[in-house]
Every structure is written in structure tokens, then in C-alpha cells.
């Protein structure tokens, strides 16, 4: 494998205790002090153009030894035509753009490559291939490949075109498209083989194969080539550049000598020559086009230039394809989101809405399960961990702190208990909706037991910094406890959803505030109405009543029997209306009372109620039955008094039996209904309620028996229901017409 280029040359001299990565990062592979011997290198001081360093192989290639060259003026070596070209190139800001320049030494033709770096002019001389280089031909071929590349329908097809193009341009036996993952492990995505060599497609290579400083170098230059792995480096003389006082920086030198450990690595892979082209996306190293040959292989400058260009174009294509993919996914997410948000924003209850649209919620994140946790209440959708585990997970997430979105494809690595449910949920994406309240939306992805084909065992390779590994046979590793990874689109979606839900919560809060203000206003209107009703309306009513009485007293004779009956009806109607007003005022008063819960003795409350009803009890000769002492209960004693007073008063009032009784009792909660608390009962042997009227019994001012004007106002039951419900309880009635009624209620 060619990809791992430079390994740490000095690693053996570094103490073992020093962390490997640190060693790699500090390994100065850009200043090896030597070059590959197929070309010669001169370091030149400008503007004098004095040669300050030369590679030892200059004697062999140029016929001039370093000792002869050092101190000479570059122009002294050139004929007038060459001199003019070089002078032209040096006029340019970047002479590399004018390369290569043809130069002859002792009848040998060379390609001169010029570049400036670190204040030094570096002149590399490569033997020119025989015959004229045909740049145009390479570029025409490139055009064809670029067109093909742009029309590739799928990513695998695209990678295949890239590999085939480079294979045809260069003639390497193995050409691979190699992509780094976020941890800098590499995977071979596309390949073109033009000889009987092993395929590396689908193989993964550990990050340590290409150390950080090598990757840094790859991100700076587009192409590296090693024509043969069996070379003897040609050192530079002198070792330090006299101009800088440092070893010559060869970061951009084509001839730069590579690490012997890297060469050993290549030899272990049975690679005789290699080349790699960088693929950069948004300025970052995305991957490589890596080329292998079993035997020596040099490429003419023109082909390398074509390859560099192709690498740049491929990089752009990848950027475009990734953007296209991102936009596609974004569009898809947007569609789902729009539908989702639309549904949610129209909903009254956030949790309910999230649940109702759970399928979209799962689709939204391509997840198998989700948990919607609002204020400690969790709703589970699809395939999730068991409820108690979700609660524990939430606690853990809460403790993790502020980060609003957390994603992992292997939860058990972060939180050990997750190993217990890795099948259902190895992947977790958590969105904390509110910073204050414990509101979370969690998505789960199931375990995908993945088999990773490593080129050799990666763990051995980790300490292989001492010796590049020899085995490139497939070493299979089954990775457990992992889900499909959450990609950037997922995370972006999570952030956007969070933003939208937050906005929704805020909007809802604002609406609630608005409603509250509205409610307060209406309440105040109701209060004024109740005031008007109980004061201002009562006065004229009293007047009507009084005058009807005066009429009766003063004009009985003139009115006659019929007239008197009508006057009495006026009085009765006024009186009845007055009762209604009193009831209305009372109902409104009860409704406005603050609910103050405290442990209360219901027996004592009942005693007081019965004492206040003593006159009515006595008058109706009704028997009060109390078979079971009422318990203590957490409630508002003042309001609960209203419940008993109204129910008992009704029971007394609506009874036409000669022997009347009212029974006040309670029963223990039904099994499974314990949280509802005891069921209180008020029964009578009164007139009962028709079945069809049962539902209407608790409606405001609904009188079910209006055979007399003194039959009450009907506000009593409405008050009772309101008080019961304000306690969180329920009230219902069982009745047989003519036999009696039982009112039942709970207070929790």
C-alpha cells in the first residue's frame, strides 16, 4: 500500500515512553537532508544565484560534483538560451508555474523544476524522457475522463472512473481511491487493477499507517512519486543551508527522499514504485489516489502534471458531489421537517403532537426508536431501550451538562449500562430542547454488527511504529455495540429541530401568557358581572317583588282572584330570579377561591356541614346515616365543605318519601385505582334522576325537577363538580328514578 508514505525515521532513537502520535507529529519528514537519486537538486541563493547546496549525485548526473558546483553562479552553467528562459521564470512570482524548463548538461537533457520555499530557490533536475512530451495528448484524455466522471450516476461508479482514468494515464498496476474516515483510518472505495495483483477494495487501513505530519504534507502538495523503493538517498552538501542555517525544507520538492520505514512498508506490500495524488475537500485532506507498481516506474513530468490537474478536478467533483448529497439530504430533511413542524405547530400539546407524528419523527432521523421526554415524562416510540433504562440514560444525559445535541454510534463506550440494550439502541442522538427544563428528544439506532476488513491487524500496527507490519492479509474484526453513524445531515437536522422546538416552546409560552392575560381579563369581567348580579340586579328585583306585594295589599279588591294570581306569579318569578343571582354569585365566588390543599379531617368537615343544615334536616325529618367515619384527606377544607353541603342539601330537598334518609360514606379505592384515593358517596332514597338526564346533572343552572319555583337553582351540582375537578378528582352519579340517587366522587 502506498498511502502510508513517510514514517518516523528517527522513531528508534526516541524513548519508548514518549507517545507515538507526538513523535509522529514532530518528525521532520520535510527536511530529510537527502533526495531520491533519479534527479539532482541545487539550492540557490537569490538574487546572486549562487549555488549554496547540491545533491551528491550531481557528479553522476550532471558531471559536476557538489564541490565544483558550490559557490558557482547558476547562470555560469547555462547556455544563453537556457539562461534567458530561467531569467524569465525567475522574474515570475512563482517560477514553479514556468516549469519544466529544458536544460542540457554535457549533452544530457533535463527537465528543470524551479520553486522558491523558505527564501531559497530550489532547482530540481530530472532526466528528460526521450522524444517530445505531448501535453496536449494527456489533456485531451483528461477531458474525456472528466466528462465521464461528471456523468457517473453513483458514487461507486464515480470512484471507478477516477481509478480507471489514473490507471490509463499512468500505467500503474494498482490504482486506488482511498478515503479517510473522521479518525483518519482509510478505506479503499474504488480500484483499477491492470495486472495480476491483490485487490485492496473494501480494505480498511489504520490511521497510524499515515502519520499526522505526512498527512499535513499531503494537504500541501498535490502529488508524490517514488520511482523505486530500492534507492540510495542522495544527501545534500552541505547538510545545512548556509542561507537559513537549517536543513533545506523539501516540502515542495519532487525529489524529496522518503522515510526508510515507509519504504520498508511498501516493500512489505510488494510494492516497487508508488505515486499518490492528494484529494482535498474544503482545504482538508479527504483521501488519496494511490498508485502501486511491482517494479520500478518513473513518470514523465507531463503525465504527473496531468495527474495533478486530475487530482484537483477530482477534488472539486468530490466537493460538488458531497454538496449535492448534502443538499439532497437537506431537501429530504426539509420536506419531512416542514410536514413535521406544520403538524406540531398546530398541535395543542407538544408531547402529544410529537407522539402523533412519531413515524415522521423516526423518518426524520432515520432511527428505529425515539423517546420524547418532557419534564420527566417519557413517551417511547418504536424500538427503544426499556423504560427504566431510558430514565437512567436521561439522568446521565442531564449530568453530562450543557451540550444541546449529543450523538454517538456506540453509546456503550460512553455509558457502560448501554451495553445491556445494545441490540435495540447502540446509536443515540439526543436533543436537549430546553436549557432549563429536562426536555429531551432521543433517537435510537439499533446495533449493526459490522465486519471490518482490515489490511492487517490494526492493533498490531499501532505499535508497529517500530516495524511496519508485514501482513496485509485481510484481518477481520467484528465490531459490536455500534449503530450506523449519525452523519452531518443528521446532526444539522437535530440542531434545526431543536431550534424549531425551542421556538415552538417559546411561542407556546407566549401564547399561554397571552391567554392568561385574556383569562384574567375575562375573570375580571366575570367578577364585575357577579358584582353587578349580586348588587345592582338584586335591587330592582327586590323592587319588583315589593311592589307586587304592595299591589296585593292595596288593590286586592280591584285585582280580583285572577289578578292576584298574576301578581303572585310576578313575585315568585322575581324571587326565583333572585335565588339564581345569589347562586351565580356564590358559584363565581367559589371559583375564584384559591385552592389550598392541606391534610383535613373529613369527619369534622361533615360534622360542620350537618350542623349548618340542622334546620333543614329537622324540618324534613330526614335520617342522616354515617356508617363509616370519613378519613383524613389532603384537600381544601373550605371548598370540600361546599361539596358535602350541596350534595346533602340536594339529597334532603329532592326527596318525597315519607321516611327519608341520606347516607354519607366512603369506600377504599378499586384495585389499580389507588392513586385516585378513596371514593366518597352521598346517597339518598329521594326522587332519583331519569337516566337520560344523568349527563346533564352537573351542568350549570340545569334544574332537573322544575315542578316548583322553590326547587333550587341547579348551581349546587355545578359548584360540586367544579370543586371536585379542581382537586383533580371525578364525580359521577348512579340513580334509579323514584328510588334514589348516589353521588360518588374522588378528590385526587
Amino acid at each position: 500500500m502506498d498511502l502510508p508514505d513517510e514514517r518516523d525515521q528517527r522513531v528508534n532513537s526516541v524513548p519508548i515512553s514518549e507517545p507515538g502520535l507526538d513523535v509522529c507529529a514532530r518528525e521532520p519528514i520535510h527536511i530529510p537532508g537527502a533526495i531520491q537519486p533519479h534527479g539532482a537538486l541545487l539550492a540557490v541563493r537569490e538574487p546572486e544565484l549562487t549555488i549554496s547546496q547540491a545533491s551528491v549525485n550531481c557528479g553522476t548526473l550532471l558531471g559536476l560534483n557538489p564541490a565544483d558546483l558550490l559557490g558557482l553562479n547558476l547562470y555560469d552553467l547555462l547556455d544563453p538560451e537556457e539562461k534567458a528562459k530561467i531569467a524569465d521564470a525567475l522574474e515570475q512570482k512563482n517560477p514553479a508555474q514556468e516549469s519544466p524548463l529544458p536544460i542540457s548538461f554535457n549533452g544530457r537533457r533535463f527537465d528543470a523544476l524551479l520553486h522558491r520555499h523558505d527564501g531559497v530557490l530550489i532547482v530540481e533536475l530530472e532526466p528528460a524522457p526521450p522524444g517530445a512530451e505531448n501535453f496536449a495528448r494527456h489533456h485531451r484524455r483528461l477531458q474525456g475522463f472528466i466528462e465521464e466522471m461528471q456523468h457517473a450516476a453513483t458514487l461507486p461508479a464515480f470512484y471507478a472512473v477516477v481509478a480507471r482514468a489514473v490507471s490509463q494515464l499512468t500505467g500503474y498496476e494498482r490504482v486506488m481511491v482511498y478515503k479517510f474516515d473522521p479518525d483518519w483510518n482509510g478505506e479503499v472505495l474504488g480500484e483499477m487493477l491492470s495486472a495480476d495483483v491483490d485487490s485492496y477494495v473494501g480494505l480498511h487501513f489504520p490511521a497510524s499507517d499515515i502519520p499526522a505530519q505526512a498527512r499535513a504534507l499531503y494537504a500541501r502538495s498535490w502529488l508524490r512519486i517514488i520511482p523505486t523503493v530500492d534507492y540510495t538517498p542522495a544527501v545534500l552538501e552541505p547538510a545545512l543551508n548556509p542561507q537559513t542555517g537549517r536543513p533545506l525544507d523539501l516540502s515542495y520538492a519532487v525529489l524529496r527522499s522518503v522515510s526508510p520505514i515507509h519504504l520498508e512498508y511498501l516493500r512489505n506490500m510488494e510494492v516497487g514504485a508508488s505515486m499518490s495524488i492528494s484529494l482535498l475537500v474544503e482545504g482538508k485532506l479527504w483521501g488519496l489516489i494511490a498508485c502501486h507498481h511491482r517494479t520500478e516506474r518513473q513518470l514523465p513530468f507531463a503525465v504527473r502534471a496531468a495527474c495533478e490537474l486530475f487530482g484537483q478536478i477530482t477534488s472539486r467533483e468530490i466537493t460538488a458531489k458531497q454538496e449535492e448529497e448534502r443538499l439532497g439530504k437537506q431537501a429530504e430533511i426539509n420536506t419531512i421537517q416542514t410536514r413535521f413542524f406544520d403538524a406540531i405547530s398546530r398541535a395543542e400539546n407538544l408531547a402529544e403532537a410529537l407522539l402523533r407524528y412519531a413515524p415522521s419523527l423516526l423518518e426524520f432521523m432515520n432511527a428505529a426508536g425515539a423517546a420524547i421526554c418532557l419534564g420527566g415524562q417519557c413517551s417511547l416510540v418504536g424500538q427503544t431501550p426499556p423504560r427504566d433504562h431510558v430514565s437512567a440514560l436521561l439522568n446521565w444525559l442531564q449530568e453530562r451538562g450543557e451540550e444541546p445535541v449529543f450523538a454517538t454510534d456506540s453509546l456503550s463506550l460512553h455509558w457502560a449500562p448501554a451495553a445491556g440494550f445494545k441490540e435495540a439502541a447502540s446509536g443515540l442522538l439526543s436533543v436537549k430542547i430546553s436549557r432549563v427544563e429536562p426536555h429531551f428528544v432521543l433517537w435510537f439506532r439499533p446495533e449493526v454488527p459490522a465486519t471490518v476488513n482490515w489490511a492487517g491487524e490494526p492493533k498490531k500496527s499501532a505499535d508497529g511504529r517500530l516495524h511496519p507490519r508485514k501482513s496485509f492479509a485481510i484481518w477481520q474484526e467484528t465490531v459490536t455495540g455500534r449503530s450506523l453513524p449519525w452523519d452531518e445531515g443528521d446532526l444539522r437536522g437535530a440542531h434545526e429541530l431543536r431550534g424549531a422546538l425551542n421556538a415552538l416552546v417559546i411561542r407556546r409560552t407566549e401564547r399561554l401568557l397571552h391567554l392568561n392575560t385574556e383569562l384574567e381579563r375575562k375573570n375580571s369581567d366575570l367578577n364585575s358581572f357577579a358584582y353587578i348580579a349580586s348588587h345592582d340586579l338584586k335591587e330592582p328585583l327586590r323592587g319588583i317583588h315589593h311592589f307586587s306585594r304592595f299591589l296585593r295589599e292595596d288593590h286586592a279588591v280591584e285585582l280580583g282572584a285572577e289578578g292576584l294570581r298574576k301578581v303572585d306569579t310576578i313575585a315568585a318569578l322575581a324571587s326565583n330570579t333572585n335565588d339564581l343571582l345569589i347562586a351565580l354569585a356564590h358559584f363565581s365566588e367559589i371559583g375564584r377561591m384559591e385552592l389550598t390543599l392541606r391534610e383535613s379531617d373529613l369527619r369534622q368537615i361533615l360534622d360542620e356541614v350537618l350542623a349548618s343544615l340542622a334546620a333543614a334536616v329537622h324540618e324534613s325529618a330526614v335520617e342522616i346515616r354515617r356508617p363509616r367515619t370519613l378519613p383524613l384527606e389532603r384537600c381544601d377544607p373550605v371548598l370540600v365543605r361546599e361539596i358535602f353541603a350541596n350534595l346533602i342539601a340536594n339529597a334532603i330537598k329532592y326527596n318525597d318519601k315519607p321516611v327519608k334518609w341520606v347516607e354519607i360514606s366512603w369506600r377504599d379505592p378499586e384495585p389499580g385505582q389507588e392513586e385516585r384515593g378513596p371514593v366518597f358517596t352521598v346517597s339518598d332514597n329521594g326522587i332519583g334522576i331519569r337516566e337520560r338526564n344523568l349527563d346533564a346533572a352537573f351542568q350549570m343552572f340545569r334544574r332537573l325537577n322544575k315542578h316548583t319555583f322553590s326547587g333550587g337553582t341547579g348551581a349546587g351540582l355545578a359548584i360540586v363538580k367544579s370543586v371536585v375537578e379542581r382537586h383533580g378528582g371525578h364525580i359521577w352519579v348512579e340513580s334509579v328514578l323514584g328510588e334514589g340517587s348516589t353521588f360518588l366522587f374522588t378528590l385526587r
Partner: protein
Amino acid sequence: MPHSILIIEDQDADFEAIERGLRRLGVEYPVTRCTDAEDALDYLYGRGVHRRNPGEQQPPTIVLLDLKLDGGDGREVLARVKQDDYLKAIPIIVWSGSNDPHDVEISYRLGANSFVRKTFDFSEVNETLERLARFWLETAVLPPIPNAPY
């Protein structure tokens, strides 16, 4: 000195109910009616249209006061009378339709001698009046009101 009764009441029905009730009870003391606070105070202080000549009718010996008056507030009359060194000896019975405990408390704080709630039913009005008359006109000894300085 003969008793006289001042009834401060803006509602005709209520006034008539009281007047009828008193007649029915056989109470024959002179009854004066004022319908607003200003008029009532003028009467009590013997000023304006109620200016008294010497030897003429003195302030009432007992007052029935409605709190809610079309013109002004009954509590104003109550406060003024009970702050007056001379008039404050006159018993004032608040006769109100209010169910608000606050009104009751305020009335007593201002010096009302009793607070009676207006009843809806005419027959109940009569019962209330009978009890009031029995106490204030037959049982209680009212202070003499000699030589009004006003």
C-alpha cells in the same frame, strides 16, 4: 321629647316597604326620608332646605341608613355623623343589601350601631322591622338630644 326617625334610602320600593312595615307595627313617630347623602347631611345639620328655626324639629332620634345611594355613599354620612361630637349620639342602623363582609366591617368601624341586611321578601322585611322596633324603640333608652347647636 318625641322620637323621630330619619330614613336615608334612594329606592322607593325599599322606603315604602319600611314605611308600610312601621305603620303596620303601629309606630307613629314622624318619619323623614332623604334620598342622597348630601340631603341627609343637610337634614342632620339643619341647613339648606332643612334649616331649622329655634324650637322647631330637632335632629332625629334614630337613623336607618342605606349604604348604596344614588347620590353619594351612605358610608360618608355614617363617617360624618360619627365624627361629630354632637350628632354621634344618634343611633344609626345600617340597612343594606350588601352581602360583602367588608361592608359590614367598615360600617361598624365607622361607628354604626347595628348592621341589618335588607331581605328580599316583604314579609321578612316586616319581621326585621318588628325586631328593630322592639329593641330600638321599646327596649333601648335613647339619649336625649337637647338644644341642637345647629
